[in-house]
């Protein structure tokens, strides 16, 4: 298929999925936080509050967009745009899976052309550096928003953000250098390919399982620095609500406020993707496909369906008797689809002679890696939310001394030792 059309389709799919995921990430966060704090969370709009993101979007768009009279209007308008722009760009270099390689398929009236494309918008030779560079620019949005709002709380938020970003970028870059020393490449696809295979046939060769314990230290350093870079609890001093009202976005409302929110969640997704790619083996399953790792999504859907039917047998509300079996059947259909796909991936000779089965097998070959990748990213995002529900906020001097007197020396020593190790045995 035409490269240009394919790229446009891929960009549209990635943008749609990402923006939807951002909206639902917020739902997930509210739900998980609520359960951590023994509350129910959003449950009014749709079942379990599943339509809440939609309602929030409608609310944010239709709100009055006010501009305070005392702001520096040009930079005040510019800041949300910068925030969203530099949050969305890094997604372009992140690979979500191996590649889609569909053969042509003739089904009477339907003719499907052969498609071959990488599950990624673009693969740069220096993808890691690109992400570091672009996400470093995101701080200008916070700094500008704080400064142009022209009040002291916002200004303090912006100042804190810039100081925090500079401080934590250093340990983060040093932590990232450790896996790069092992893998010898800066392209994300090369990084994931370098983590393929298994020790003793079942322990994956992910970076955190290599070079014990230095890569685990590096992973922890990276995650702590990533929390700080994305301004999340316990490092959310730029918007500390008990000190600074709402910090840098105090003066923003309506869609401009939503833009900052979106950028924050998008940065979380980007950082989780980078952590998955660099340390957790990208799309490589946790145990080999030959041992049946491909069946895990099918088993999850199966369990989901069974639980739905169990609850339908003892309905809490009258309409559960109808809705839950429907959910269960949908889950069973998904389980069957994933099961067939996993079987065809595991035993390719089953598809011999049938073009339809071969087409399904090649589709499954492209989708299974994405399932693993997404699963890992969602796990890291869950940790983000978990930490937010658990830890209190740092004080500002603690934040700075933690970066400079604890993380930075550890990162330097860690990098030295790994460099020595790679030079001697690598």
């Amino acid at each position, binding site marked *: 298929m035409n490269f240009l059309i394919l790229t446009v389709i891929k960009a549209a799919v990635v943008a749609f999925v990402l923006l939807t995921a951002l909206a639902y990430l917020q739902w997930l966060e509210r739900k998980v936080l609520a359960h951590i704090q023994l509350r129910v969370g959003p449950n009014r709009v749709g079942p379990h509050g599943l339509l809440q993101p939609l309602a929030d979007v409608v609310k944010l768009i239709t709100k009055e967009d006010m501009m305070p009279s005392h702001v520096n209007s040009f*930079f005040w308008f510019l800041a949300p745009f910068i925030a969203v722009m530099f949050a969305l760009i890094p997604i372009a270099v992140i690979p979500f899976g191996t590649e889609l390689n569909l053969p042509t398929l003739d089904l009477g009236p339907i003719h499907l052309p052969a498609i071959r494309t990488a599950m990624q918008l673009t693969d*740069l*030779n*220096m993808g890691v*550096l*690109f992400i*570091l*560079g*672009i996400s*470093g*620019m995101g*701080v*200008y949005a916070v*700094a*500008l928003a*704080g*400064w142009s709002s022209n009040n002291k709380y916002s*200004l303090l938020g*912006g*100042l804190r953000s*810039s*100081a925090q*970003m*500079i401080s934590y*970028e250093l340990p983060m870059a040093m932590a990232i250098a450790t896996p790069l020393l092992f893998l010898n490449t*800066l392209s994300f696809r090369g990084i994931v390919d370098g983590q393929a295979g298994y020790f003793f046939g079942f322990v994956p060769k992910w970076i955190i399982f290599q070079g014990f314990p230095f890569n685990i230290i590096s992973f922890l350093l990276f995650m702590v620095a990533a929390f700080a870079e994305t301004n999340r609890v316990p490092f959310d001093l730029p918007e500390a609500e008990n000190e600074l009202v709402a910090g840098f976005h105090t003066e923003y409302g309506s869609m401009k406020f939503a833009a900052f929110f979106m950028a924050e969640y998008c940065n979380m997704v980007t950082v989780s993707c980078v952590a998955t790619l660099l340390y957790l083996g990208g799309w490589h399953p946790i145990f080999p496909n030959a041992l049946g790792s491909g069946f895990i999504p099918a088993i999850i859907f199966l369990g989901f369906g069974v639980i739905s039917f169990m609850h339908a047998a003892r309905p809490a509300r009258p309409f559960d008797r109808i809705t839950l079996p429907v959910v269960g059947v949908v889950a069973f259909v998904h389980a069957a689809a994933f099961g067939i796909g996993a079987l065809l991936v595991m035993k390719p000779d089953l598809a011999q002679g049938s073009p339809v089965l071969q087409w399904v097998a090649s589709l499954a070959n492209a989708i299974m890696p994405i399932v693993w990748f997404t699963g890992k990213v969602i796990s890291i995002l869950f940790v983000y939310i978990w930490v937010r529900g658990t830890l209190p906020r740092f004080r500002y001097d603690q934040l700075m001394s933690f970066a400079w007197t604890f993380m930075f020396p550890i990162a330097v020593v860690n990098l030295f030792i790994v460099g020595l190790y790679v030079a001697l045995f690598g």
Partner: protein
Amino acid sequence: MDALLFMIFAAIAVVCGISLVIQKHPISSALSLIGVMAALAALYLLLGGEFIAAAQLIVYAGAIMVLFVFVIMLLNAGTEKRGRRMLANYADLPILLLFLGIVAAFIANRMPPTEQVIFGNFKGGTALDIGRALFTTYLLPFEVTSILILIAILGAIVLARKEID
């Protein structure tokens, strides 16, 4: 395509550079400087120096300019006030034009018009090539520069610290 991209990014760099000088507010000037640096990064990329482009973005546009902006915000520097310009103040314009003319003439003299810049033709801009060059061929200059920067940092600390009696 390459030439078109060069035109676009060169124009951005020049416009941001002019804006840097004529803006009255320090924050606007700092942001214009970021624009210049980002455009330069794009130009490096067009020439095939991908590592330099990324380093430009991370170090200059990302880290150093954040410090600049931080300091400007911290000092809360206000809009620059300019006095009335007398006719004599415009005397710098012809000098500037003369200087630009000399530079242009020099470049036109040195570079014959038949020689063309070929975009992306330069091989050796990857991180691998640069690392190899820095740590083998140019190891001594590299280390000497590092020590120079270290001395500069120490000097800054000595100058800036408070006197302890």
